[in-house]
Every structure is written in C-alpha cells, then in structure tokens.
C-alpha cells in the first residue's frame, strides 16, 4: 500500500465519520414514507391516503408520552369522523412493556410497534415524544417535540382543523 492511498483512505474515513454521525430528520415538506416497508408490528390503519395523519413516536417509559395519551384520545374522537388518523408508533424494545402500558392507558387510536426501531431512525427524532402532522396529500406540515399539556393540545387542534378544512 503506498502512502498517498493511505492518506486518501484516512481522509475518506474522517469525512465518512462526520456524515455517519449526522442525522437527517423529517422536516416540513417531506413526504410520508411507505410504512409497509418498516416491518411495524400490529395492523396499520386501512387507508391513510387522503387523511390527515398524525404520527406520534412514544414509549412506555416516557412520562410526557403518558401525559399525551388522554389528549390524543380526545383528538382522535373529536376529529376522527372528519378524516383524522392518529397513529402511535411505539418504540419499546420489549413488546410486553407496551402491552402493560396500554392496559393502564387505553389508546383510542391505532398503535403499532416499531420493533426494529427503523422508522424512528428514519424520522431522526431528538426527543420523546415527537410527532409529525401530515396533510391529506401525505406531506409533513407540522412537527412537535415533547408534550407540554394544554398548550401542545391546543396547537394540535389548530393545526388539525386547518388541515381538515382543505
């Protein structure tokens, strides 16, 4: 192996390292990926096309996620008939943790488990919970990080109403 090749390899490794550690997160304007390709556990809602969709990443050990459940339930009940689909993406590594949680905190919306944590890695979230609000065309219109009680709930309502009107 000659020195210049070695130099190039070293440089390539340094550059690659910089990019590998940087994460690309979903942002406003991005399209909803095909969820069928992520091997999610549990049945996906039948028709997401043409619906306003909220993808909410949560886990059983996350306090604010638990806090968000009653609000999510009410949003689903209130806006479901008008075309809102809330899809909870669970990130527990152990399915039993999720089931125990759901026994205590019933979900009135669809929940699937991202067992391989592939979808969440694609979404590149920085905080639990994080959620993405998609319009009927399947484009990210709003993002949320964390759940801050009534304030976040109100934001959801405003956003969902604005998207349902269209």
């Amino acid at each position, binding site marked *: 192996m*000659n*020195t210049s090749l*070695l*130099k190039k*390899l*070293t440089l390539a*490794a*340094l550059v*690659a*390292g910089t990019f*590998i*550690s940087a994460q690309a997160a979903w942002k406003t304007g991005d399209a909803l990926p095909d969820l069928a390709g992520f091997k999610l556990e549990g049945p996906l809602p039948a028709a997401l096309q043409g619906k306003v969709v909220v993808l909410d*990443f949560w*886990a059983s*050990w*996350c*306090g*604010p*996620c638990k806090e968000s459940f009653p609000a999510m339930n009410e949003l689903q009940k209130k806006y479901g008939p008008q075309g809102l689909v809330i899809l909870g993406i669970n*990130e*527990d*590594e152990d399915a039993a*943790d999720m089931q125990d949680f759901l026994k205590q905190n019933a979900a009135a919306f669809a929940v699937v488990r991202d067992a391989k*944590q592939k979808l*969440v*890695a694609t979404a590149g*979230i*920085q*905080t*639990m*919970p*994080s959620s993405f609000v998609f319009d009927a065309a399947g484009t990210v219109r709003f993002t949320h*990080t*964390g*759940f*801050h009680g009534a304030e976040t709930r109100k934001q959801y309502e405003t956003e969902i109403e604005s998207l349902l009107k269209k």
Partner: protein
Amino acid sequence: MRPLFLRLFLLAVLAAVLGTQTGCDTVKPWQRKTLADYTMRGDRDPLTDGMLDHIFFSREMASGGKGVGGGGCGCN
C-alpha cells in the same frame, strides 16, 4: 516513497479513526429506557438525601444546591 515512520503514522491514524467510529455511539432519544428509570433519579430517596445533606453540612459547612430535577429520560 515516504519514509517508513510516516506510513506507519498514517496507518495508526487510520486505525484510530476507524476504531473510534465502531466503538462510540450516542444513546438515541428512543433508547433511553434504562436512563429514564426511577432508580436513575438522584433524588429518589428523601432519607438518603437528608443524610447526604447532613454529611455535606457537617464536613463542608455546605448544604443544598446540589443535583437537578428529573431523571435521564431527556423527554420534553
């Protein structure tokens, strides 16, 4: 052809860079189950808190001003 020591040096740098990239990773926000556990909280036991406070006060004439609220969940 460069001197041998330079080639060895570059090889060592390459090995070190590759080594750090396989060995290090950050805990992702969705992998914080263990960190979010109750036992990771510094203030989980009021009795221990009181005792430690007492020790600090006796030894250093200082009390309070330690620790932060919450666990390692990093939520919100």
